[in-house]
């Protein structure tokens, strides 16, 4: 409905190609022993990139009204913050109880 410049089919295909490539890299990284130490940060970054690409291009947030980005991004950030703080608190308390 929006009048803004829409992505074209070519863009959609390019994004799909990038998504597939990143997925392949993710799986590759998973199997390569040298990456084991850095596995978690690498995977988190890669999946964040995929997440962002889908949201920006397939859900059109890049072209759509900024307010939608707020409606989605606000709760998303809240959710992430809550997950992270819960993990810290929970593990902190468990350590305290078990003395490890």
């Amino acid at each position, binding site marked *: 409905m929006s009048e803004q410049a829409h992505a074209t089919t070519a863009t959609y295909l390019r994004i799909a190609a990038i998504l597939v490539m990143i997925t392949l890299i993710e799986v590759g990284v998973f199997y390569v022993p040298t990456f084991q130490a850095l596995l978690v940060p690498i995977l988190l970054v890669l999946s964040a990139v995929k997440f962002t690409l889908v949201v920006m291009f397939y859900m059109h947030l890049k072209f759509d009204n900024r307010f939608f980005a707020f409606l989605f991004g*606000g*709760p998303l950030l*809240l959710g992430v913050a*809550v997950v992270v703080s*819960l993990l*810290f*608190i*929970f593990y*902190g*308390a*468990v*350590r*305290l*109880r078990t003395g490890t």
Partner: protein
Amino acid sequence: MKTWLTTTDHKRIGLLYFWTAFGFFLIGGLEALIIRAQLARPDGGLGVSAETFNQLFTMHGTTMVFLALMPLSAAFFNFMIPLQIGARDVAFPRLNAFSYWVFLLGGLFLNASFIAGPLFGADRLSVAPDAGWFGYENLTSRQFSPGPNVDFWLLGLQILGIASLAAGFNFIVTILNMRAPGMRMLRLPPFTWMTLITQFLVITAFPVITVALVLLMFDRFFGTHFFVPQGGGDPILWQHLFWMFGHPEVYILILPAMGIVSEVLPTFSKKPLFGYTVVVYSGVVIAFLGWSVWSHHMFSSGLGPIADSVFAGTTMLIAIPTGVKIFNWIGTLWGGQIRFTTSLLFAVGFIAMFIIGGLSGVSHASAPSDLQQTDTYYVVAHIHYVLFGGTILGLFAGMYYWWPKMTGRLLSESLGKVHFWLTMIGMNLAFFPMHFSGLLGMPRRIYTYSSELGVTGFNQASTIGAFLIGLATLVFVWNLLRTRWQPISAPHNPWGGATLEWAIPSPPPVYNFTVIPTVESRMPLWQTERHAPMRPLPERPPAPIHVPGGSWWPLITATGLPVMAIGALSHVIPVVLAGAAVVIVGIYRWAYEPFEM
């Protein structure tokens, strides 16, 4: 009758919310009076058993939070928001009807637990929820609570959550997208603003309790161990999930009342709200911080010094925007031409009582002092100063203020003053002594206490106070009912209010506004420095106005939910499926029904 069952008119839905929630308020109040009568003497004044007592306080808390206070606020959202923003209805009228029916059925489902005992081979008054309004694990595990009590609770809350979420999306869109021309965001009446903030809290906090209840349901119905230590689970996780929802929830309960007070004070002091923008922004800050304090309910669970300090800090921070609002309200009254109507009295009572509640809140924001207070009557005092002294007094202020708009009839001011003073005396007599009984060591949620504890006098005072509140409420009920026999005679704007709802007849016609007004100032009906009052709207609509017809599908879809819950409760899968089928058919018919705004 049929027109009420199928109605999608926000005003009718508002009235339905009001009467239903008020009915639940009376039920919850009755439970409280039984509790207080039992505690009037050491060793039990009424002979209520421990089991019954557990059900009474659990249902009292659950009813007041989810079936009385939230939906009483919702009654005002429904009735007032479209009027305040200059709209003909909410954005999704049928979804609005759906919210109401789901709320009603969820409430009936919960309360059916009082009489459902025989269906489970038990006595009456034995299968109602009994694990407290926050349902702590492992009281709620199948092992320690084998009966259907907790099942009623978790299924009932799950149903009610759907109603709140649906209303949350609806009102966010309504407020943002249905405003009259010129009604910019910073011209919205403060009640509308606080409603908007509240709905953002609803749509973010309710999913968390939904998940917590789903996990509990899996533990109880399918034998998982999310919260069961024998299987590696941790009951503390329940506390986290509950309070991640629960603290935003307390702001869901108080913000609408703050909004009401911010409407009432300017009208009756004939002065604009002092620091309108600050009131708005401090509401936003409160909501935001409200998400960062949940563990202050869990100091005694052993979070460790770092988490304790962080949560103590954020909790104390919240007192700042709260205090800011209080100064704004006092600033509004300051130097105004105050008219001491009942509505204003309740609003001022709100400020005073809420300050006391806030102070006790700050006193248990500090972890070491909280360890002395938690799980004692001191916390009961706190929550009643904020929820009764805050939310309920605010709601009463709103009832006296908006009753003429909702019904076209004015409440009696002299009965109102009796109601106010009895309430004030009653609530302070009931709840102030609880600070002392709590600090002297009386735990909350016990059905008897020994005279050696030295709290008998305080408890007697509390009981007398509670019955005074009961008496006050009877006066109010009489005040409400007697208006039904009066002629509809309220003028458009009986109090000289500044906002759009006062520009139209009382009660408003179905279409609300004969023409949609164009708004030029934050107080459209008042003379301000730069703006003359809005010109009166035409008596009759210049062009015919199209009003949507009713729909059966919201009601029908809603009935599927308690059917599913009954199936789950009795472990009869076909009933669950039948309920689900009703929901699915209802949604399809709803989606493809011709319905136009």
